[in-house]
């Protein structure tokens, strides 16, 4: 399943590994590489003929592999050269235009580019290692019914698991699998990223061929222009490609918790110490400010108020069961519209349940995934406190309230920027405050009154004293005996 991505990274990393590159790759990835290497090679020692013995599924593949290894009757084919068995398959499947009608009315192409397959790492294991349900005695007359291409992809993912079990399980934990489970028609299965008949080492490890760009084209464009992309394109393999930060198979919701910060710090290990030399409250900044907020200086920022249960400390998931919330349109924070302080307060109280109160935890983030990738050199990053810590800062002109949606992907609801400044939300938005930037308006008014009172009061009293004393002095002057 993952021969392309994983073995490609292994080759790339081992040939060009620098100390920085070594840091850039977390242990998780390295482990995945090792497993992939082992698992891809293992079937290559096997023969293929007996794979058609009628066994199905991973049990069949494993059992037959052992049997053939023991028999030693079949040698593996080297990449670039196909064995007679594969050539026999390609006699038909190499023909252009070979298609199979699907139950959904569409067609599935059955044509395989023979040369691509011959060059792929999977050529070593042969066709029937994966297509275990094919019986040479009855194929092609025993026609298997396939509902849709998607259904076939999902079914074949189980076949990939036979050899690439660790990668499969990583994928099962990923946001991609969660989306697949949620019925997404586009979230990738194994073959979504890895062309099964053309898997070559290193295919996922170059900017030109990394499969992520197929679906995330706009993000990839931003990445390619970023400091990471530019360094990578110049051949610096220490600069991360997609999987360097997101993982190849265990792709998580990128904005979840402290995940993004931890990913950055896994390479930039000196970042905390270097920030401590000039940035006050470093731990707090690292906790509530996403790295791209400063390191993608042209990005638009937003305050992300994440709903969570104050007892369990877990993010609240949709649906909340509050009709007003469910009917809100999700958006990306356009400033003046969306939830106003009163509505937000009402909704929060309505969502309090027997398991605890619902509260908001704030984070400063950039508005889109594209902008998340527009990272620049550190020298170009924002380093002036007053960029954010002042009234009217662009950082606080966009506010969203988030709940975890399907597959854990956050759903953003627009909120009025007043929720950051209203006295009504002092408690409900208690988890977010930026000195100077999100001042409570009514406190500014109170301070004004206090200064007027504290300075104006004495001045008034002084004037009062002075003017009345003059009157009294004048009276005593005109009536020197008046006072007795």
């Amino acid at each position: 399943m993952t021969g392309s991505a994983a073995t490609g990274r292994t080759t790339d990393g081992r040939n060009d590994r620098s100390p920085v590159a070594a840091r850039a790759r977390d242990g998780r990835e390295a482990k995945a590489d090792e497993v992939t290497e082992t698992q891809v090679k293992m079937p290559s020692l096997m023969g293929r003929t007996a794979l058609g013995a009628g066994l199905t599924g991973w049990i069949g593949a494993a059992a037959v592999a052992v049997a053939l290894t023991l028999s030693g009757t079949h040698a593996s084919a080297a990449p670039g050269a196909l064995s007679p068995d594969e050539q026999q398959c390609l006699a038909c499947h190499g023909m252009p235009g070979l298609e199979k009608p699907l139950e959904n009315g569409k067609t599935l192409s059955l044509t395989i580019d023979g040369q691509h397959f011959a060059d792929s790492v999977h050529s070593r294991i042969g066709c029937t290692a994966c297509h275990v349900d094919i019986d040479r005695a009855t194929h092609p007359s025993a026609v298997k019914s396939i509902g849709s291409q998607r259904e076939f992809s999902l079914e074949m993912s189980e076949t990939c698991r036979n050899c690439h079990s660790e990668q499969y399980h990583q994928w099962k934990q990923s946001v991609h699998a969660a989306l697949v489970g949620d019925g997404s028609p586009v979230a990738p299965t194994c073959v979504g990223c890895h062309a099964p008949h053309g898997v070559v080492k290193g295919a996922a490890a170059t900017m030109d061929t990394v499969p992520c760009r197929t679906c995330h084209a706009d993000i990839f464009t931003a990445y390619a222009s970023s400091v990471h992309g530019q360094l990578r394109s110049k051949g610096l393999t220490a600069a991360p490609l997609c999987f360097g930060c997101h993982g190849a198979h265990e792709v998580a919701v990128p904005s979840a918790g402290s995940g993004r910060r931890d990913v950055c710090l896994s390479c930039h290990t000196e970042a905390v110490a270097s920030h401590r030399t000039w940035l006050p409250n470093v731990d707090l900044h690292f906790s509530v400010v996403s790295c791209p907020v400063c390191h993608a200086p042209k990005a638009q920022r937003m305050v992300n108020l994440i709903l969570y249960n104050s007892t369990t400390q877990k993010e609240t998931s949709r649906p909340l069961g509050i009709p007003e919330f469910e009917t809100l349109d999700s958006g990306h924070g356009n400033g003046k519209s969306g939830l106003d302080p009163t509505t937000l307060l009402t909704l929060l109280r309505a969502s309090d349940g027997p398991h605890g109160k619902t509260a908001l935890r704030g984070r400063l983030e950039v508005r889109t995934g594209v902008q998340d990738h527009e990272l620049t050199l550190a020298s170009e990053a924002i380093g002036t406190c007053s960029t954010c810590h002042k009234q009217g800062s662009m950082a606080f002109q966009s506010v969203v309230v988030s709940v975890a949606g399907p597959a854990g992907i956050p759903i953003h609801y627009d909120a009025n920027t007043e929720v950051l400044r209203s006295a009504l939300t002092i408690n409900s938005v208690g988890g977010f405050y930026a000195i100077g930037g999100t001042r409570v308006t009514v406190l500014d008014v109170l301070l004004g009154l206090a200064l007027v009172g504290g300075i104006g009061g004495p001045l008034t009293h002084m004037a009062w004293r002075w003017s009345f004393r003059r009157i009294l002095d004048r009276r005593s002057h005109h009536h020197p005996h008046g006072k007795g």
Partner: protein
Amino acid sequence: MHRIYLHPLPVRIWHWINAAGCVLLVLTGLQIRYVGLIDVVPFKTAVTVHNWTGFVVVADFFLWLCFYISSARVRSYHTDLNPVRYFLGSMRQAVYYAIGIIERAPNPFHPSVYRKFNPLQLMTYQMIMIILLPIQCVTGILLWNLTGFAGVVTALGGVRVIDTAHVVIFIIFAFYIPAHVYLAAMGRTPLDHFKAMLTGWEEEPETVKAKPQPKREPAE
């Protein structure tokens, strides 16, 4: 005239450090809160000065606390348990500040070693020293290290609640400090009380002895 040793050295040290500290805290607080509107010093400098000054004021508060809990002079902070007397004394003092001072009437209150605050001062200083300043110290320390005190901050309602409490007390101090300076200048001469807080000795007119107040002098 006779002299009373009203302000012992520890009290004077505490007072002037506290005064300078609070003024600096209010000024740097204004700078921190109103960056862009007030740009006297850089934000980071204001934060650094504010933090260090805050620690000095916290330490100074403990100087005050230690002195008074170990001294009989703490009676000056004791509440008058007779509400009628306390109310009448407060009214008398308020009338003096509003009218009496204009007529150059004598101050109705005459301090002594164990009772140095008039009823209005007593109420004000009790609120400041027993309620407001301790809350301000605690909220200031929490805001100084929000991640270190994350549990306490969350338990108290979050950073916004803590900050609001801190700012509300800051507003009260911003009102109080100029008013305090003005009231301090309303002695027999404008500088009398300032001198007393420097030397420790307060001068009182001899007439006081001729017209004693119905006061609650503690048994000594």
